């Protein structure tokens, strides 16, 4: 109940306001959001934002069960019945049943194939290799991802988040406090946006909410998506499905007038390597689409290389 207080006492941080933030997968991002808000509004000068998780246990079902509670627990049995599964499975997190159902629906709607999701995993593993602290980072192939053990069709083991222990922390400060501490000039937070997801049953068929959240962040940063570049996730995260879809939603990858309403663009961007950590600029995506609207380039092609000198939504010195 007072995890933050207990955890931070070990490093000598106490007798200050300590806020415990629990918001499922977004817990650490929410801690960051609140810390940013406190400094931006002038309430605080220096804050610490932490994200920490420990999921390993001698009994593996303990961790899986814990993840499976990130739903309306009173409706869990009903939701499980709809999905044709049981919430208390010891083999997988209940969430993989939910994600697999969403993935199957997305495939029907968009024409995306399991190969597309495997491409996302290959790309994320590549990104992971750039971070020496990431859980995974070896180069993978689409075939290896598809051949891995099936968790719930069409998701294989390598498409699902691993059980993991780890922590990350940032110190945020006002410019006055930064000068006082003589800290190195770190990146400036340009903007933060956040939107709550609708409950599953009331969600729009395409499930998209990143777009309004991104709009909020761009507004706070005072820039538009044309000046933003996507930075890759340091570790494998969620399921492959979410990834290319998200690039389209946050408008880093622009959906032009001829954009496919069913998400086929997102699948093609992923295959073309445009959502890799090295990324590419929206301009590259647009010009490639004009030049060759139906072709899907392989990762590493010249069109998938980053354009130099683009600004990023996350940081400016």
């Amino acid at each position, binding site marked *: 109940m007072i995890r933050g207080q207990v955890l931070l006492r070990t490093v000598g941080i106490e007798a200050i306001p300590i806020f415990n933030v629990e918001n499922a997968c977004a817990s650490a991002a929410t801690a960051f959001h609140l810390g940013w808000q406190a400094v931006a509004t002038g309430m605080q000068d220096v804050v610490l934002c932490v994200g920490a998780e420990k999921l390993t246990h001698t009994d593996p079902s*303990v961790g899986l069960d814990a993840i499976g509670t990130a739903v309306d627990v009173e409706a869990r049995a009903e939701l499980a019945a709809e999905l044709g599964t049981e919430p208390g499975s010891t083999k997988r997190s209940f969430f993989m049943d939910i994600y697999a159902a969403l993935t199957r629906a997305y495939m029907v709607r968009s024409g995306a194939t399991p190969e597309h999701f495997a491409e996302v995993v290959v790309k994320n593993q590549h990104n992971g290799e750039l971070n020496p602290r990431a859980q995974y980072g070896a180069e993978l192939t689409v075939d290896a991802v598809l051949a891995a053990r099936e968790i719930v069709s069409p998701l294989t083991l390598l498409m699902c988040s691993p059980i993991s222990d780890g922590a990350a922390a940032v110190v*945020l400060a006002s410019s006055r406090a930064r000068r006082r501490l003589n800290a190195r000039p770190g990146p400036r937070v340009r903007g933060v946006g956040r939107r709550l997801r609708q409950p599953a049953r009331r969600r729009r068929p395409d499930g998209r909410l990143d777009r309004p959240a991104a709009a909020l962040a761009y507004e706070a940063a005072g820039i538009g998506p044309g000046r933003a570049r996507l930075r890759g996730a340091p570790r494998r995260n969620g399921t492959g499905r979410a990834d290319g879809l998200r690039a389209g939603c946050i408008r880093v990858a622009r959906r032009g007038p001829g954009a496919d309403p069913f998400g086929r663009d997102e699948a093609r961007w992923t295959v073309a390597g445009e959502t890799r950590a090295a990324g590419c600029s929206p301009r590259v995506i647009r010009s490639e689409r004009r030049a060759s609207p139906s072709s899907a380039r392989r990762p590493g092609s010249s069109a998938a290389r980053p354009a130099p000198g683009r600004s990023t939504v996350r940081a400016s010195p």
Partner: protein
Amino acid sequence: MRNVYVIGAGMTRFEKSGRTLKELVAEAVTQALADASAGPADVHAAYVGNAVAVC
């Protein structure tokens, strides 16, 4: 709104380490404070995100 800067960052390895949550947080926070040229007493408020922590 005032400008906000990230003046320090720290991160543990992500793995099935079996380490305790206290150990993980201590490592990340110690790194972040050192990176920021700050000490525990310089922090005015803290926000700690955690969802399930199987301790």
